[in-house]
């Protein structure tokens, strides 16, 4: 479903070119889950951005769902994200002018894919049923993150890319959220590629990989 070959990415910085990804290759099966580990600054977020088509690599191929990303233009990339990829970030703006309920449905509305039963399941499992009418700024950060997760999953994307989704929650609630999250990803039938710093989080996943010196290796 996702196959990356020989990916090369560097950034021009004041001190000169910094090579972040150096010939990275990686494949991922449908409905699988992978934890992406690595030191800070090793390029984890960069890799996620490249997969989501938010940034461009200097060379190498990313093939997602049978399509070469490098051949897609801006609107085709937007369309791909809209229907098949969800992103969950540590810092994720909900739409401040829409209610929690509307926020949950937002991406599903964009791609016109609704599953009412799954929606009920998401709301129940994430404990959002009493919050539906509220506006995002009335929620705590943890609650906001759970809304973001519901939004990312409702339309059942092929791939969920998560970048330290529980990074700003305390340990206890992190673990709780993570358990529900991975479970729901499974119910949605999506694949999950998640950046995390914690080995403990990685145990929720089927496979763990380490990003080091611009390449990936299984651990």
């Amino acid at each position, binding site marked *: 479903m996702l196959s990356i070959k020989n990916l090369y990415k560097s950034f021009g910085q004041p001190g000169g070119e910094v090579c972040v990804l150096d010939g990275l290759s990686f494949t991922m099966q449908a409905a699988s889950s992978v934890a992406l580990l690595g030191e800070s600054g090793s390029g984890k977020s960069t890799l996620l951005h490249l997969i989501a088509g*938010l940034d461009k690599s200097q060379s190498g191929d990313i093939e997602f769902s049978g399509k070469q990303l490098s051949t897609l233009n*801006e609107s085709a990339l937007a369309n791909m994200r809209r229907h098949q*990829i969800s992103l969950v970030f540590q*810092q994720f*703006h909900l739409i401040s002018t*829409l209610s929690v309920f509307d926020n949950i449905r937002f991406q599903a509305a964009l791609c016109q894919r609704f599953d009412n039963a799954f929606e009920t399941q998401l709301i129940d499992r994430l404990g959002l049923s009493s919050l539906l009418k509220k506006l995002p700024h009335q929620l705590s950060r943890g609650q906001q993150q759970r809304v973001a997760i519901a939004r990312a999953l409702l339309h059942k994307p092929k791939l969920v890319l998560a970048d330290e989704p529980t990074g700003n929650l305390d340990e206890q609630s992190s673990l709780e959220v993570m358990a529900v999250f991975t479970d729901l990803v499974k119910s949605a039938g999506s694949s999950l590629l998640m950046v995390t710093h914690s080995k403990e989080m990685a145990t929720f996943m089927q496979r763990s990989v380490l990003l080091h010196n611009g390449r990936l290796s299984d651990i």
Partner: protein
Amino acid sequence: MKQAILKALLSHYWRHPWQALFLLLGLTAGVGLWSAVQIINHHAEVSYAQADSLLGVQANYWIRNRSEQGIAQADYIELRRAGFRQIFPVIEGQVITPDGQLISIIATDLLALRQSMPEETVDQTFNGIDNWLQLVQKPYRAWVPQQLADEFALIQGDQLQLRDGRQLPPALIQAQTQQGRRIFMDISAAFTLFDTDQFNYITVGQLTTEQFDLLTSLLPDSLALVQNQQQLDLSELTQSLHTHLSAMSLLSFAVGLFIVFNAVRFSLWHRRETLMNLRLMGVSVKALISAILFETLIWSLIGTVSGVICGLTIGNWLLPGLSQSLFNLYGATIDAVIALQSETLLLAWGITLVGLLWALAWPMYLQLKHDVLDANSPTLRHQAENSSRQQLALFSLPLLIMAFILFQTMETAVAGFALLGLLLFAAAWLLPTLLALGLKFAQACVPKQRLIGRWMVSDGWSQMPAFRSAMMALLLAMTANLGVGTLVDSFRSAFIGWLEVRQNADIYVNSSQSNIVQLLESEQAPGKTSLWLADSHRQIGITTRWQDQPTLVNGADTRAPDSLRFPLAQWLGDTPDDALALWRDNSNYILANEQLHYLGGLKLGQTIQLDTDQGPVDYQVVGFFYDYGNPKFQFYLSYEEVAKRWKYHYSRGTALWLKPDSTSNGPSSRQQAEKSFLANGINRADWISQDEIRTLSVNIFERTFAITAAMNSLTLIVAAIALLASLLAIMQERLPEFAQWRALGVNTREQFLIICSPLLIFVVIAWLLAIPLGAVLSWLLIQKLNIVSFGWSMPMLWKMAPAWQLGGLVLVIVIVTLLLSLLQLRRRLPDALAELGELS
């Protein structure tokens, strides 16, 4: 420490040069427009003070013919022989260019003038003329101010062609003080040009008491020595126009301040963290306040300097328009070169400082007062936005009440403009609440299931804070545009309609000589049927002062066609015709212009007393007539009455109605009339046809309002800048958010729509509000302000077409600013996408 705080605060502007630019732009635009008007108003005042001088020679008195018949050269020579060196003969006249522009000519004895001047004045006046003798020798020179030369594309030595085929002497292009739009020449050149051998009047410089007595005793009976009161009259008469301009400039300043507000809002948003960190680091509130004050001071200095520089430029640009208006309305001339007064500079700095304290220092102080940690909370921000909206709406109430009280008591133009200001600001402060209501309404209109549609509309809540001040600026600019536009349109239509009634004769003959009288007598001799003349109307008049204001008393032929259709605004009796019949049949009834009613306080039916040669005589006012464009008081009596009461009356010209052309192929009535004129020694320059005089009048009208139009477009441009500033600020502030949306798969089209839709809703609401507000503004301008300032009443002519046009124009402005800001977004989005997900 202090330095570190300042550096921390000010570094914001390095990182966001756009915002510094907009802050500067807002200040410059506001201060610039304000000071431009201040500078030219002051400039005009200085010019009025010199209004009694000609080519640097003071004219304290005038010698005039009591019946305005002109002064014979012999009389002048006599006086000079008696030793008067401070008297100069003047010929004043007007000529018309082929495209119907009126130019004033003023001529004097340059030789005598030069001899009487002190050395420095000679150098100053004749500076740069290599051979000044060419001025007084054939073919003479026409001394043309630079501005007129540019207008008519004249270069040194060109001879300006006139409508009737005459030519002015070769041009000598050089500006003189007090020249205004007039062309100077030597008296001999004017004799040829106007085909006359008489002077219009003689100006008289300083006189000792003995000289005064001697001069009075030397003057023949038909001549009078009158004191020159022009300076007094001019400052009195033009006051209203200057008040109008000042009011418009204050409006521009307010609109400029909105840009500042906007830039400040953005800078606060960006610096809240800096402020918070500084406080967490233990910097005292007091130190922060002094830093903020220091920042305000710096900006006020920068803003004043750049604003005043810009004001000088705008002033120079507006000056031709103003001098046109002043000349057309009041016959006042002002200098072509403006200078900056130190008091203007100080005043400009003062208002900039006050404006900045209000727009920059106060909001920063409020931000400081919030709890240290809470300043950043979105919930608080949300609440602050709501409550500031409500506060503004609440503040607008006392403004409205004050406006209402002023409305009841208003008597001066200044009070009138204060009322307009209160009203406009009340409306501007109500606008955010209206925008909020409009947004709620729009949200209710989108069906529940259309989530994406609802999102686009609801995003307006996030854009509201950024657009608030820009929308207020836009509202003010649009309202002013519609209000002033309607005023000008109403005036134009009333004026043209009035011209049609007042100037409905076919030809006007200005010749004051007796030849027109002879011609008429022969054409209208009993038993003779004229081939071309249907009717005629000869008017006479005298100038006097009433309530110490220059006043004209006209004598009209009460049975002439135009007297029968006198356009009355108010009258005694049931119909205007009743009042006119009274006036016609009774020599102690008088007609007065509206100015006498509104400015002079005259009432219908009131009895007034005029000083005549036979002592005071009582007249009863039976009607007030429209007298547009005239700053002076004017009465109408019958011809016979004026001729009987005042010995030295003068001719006010003769109106002629032609017979319809006969069907046979002979010469037209007009051709026959013109033939008879020439045969009777009436020059081509002495008559003017109806078409020509209408074109002339309409030209004058359009030029008079040129400055208003210019101020109107400038204000709109400032509002457009405010809009652009807001949009760019939104692009900057919300970039991370926009990037997140792109990550969710929102495409370019949807992104565009979401930025556009709320903006369009806001603009439409502001536009919808501007329409009734513009109508109210124009109603106040027409029915109240115009009357207290000029004494002219007119029906208000409200049309929707200008509102639609303005809407179209604003739409174009919105589209252009949107495109500019979207370009900015496009440039910056890739970086924002790459930074997505990081904690800011």
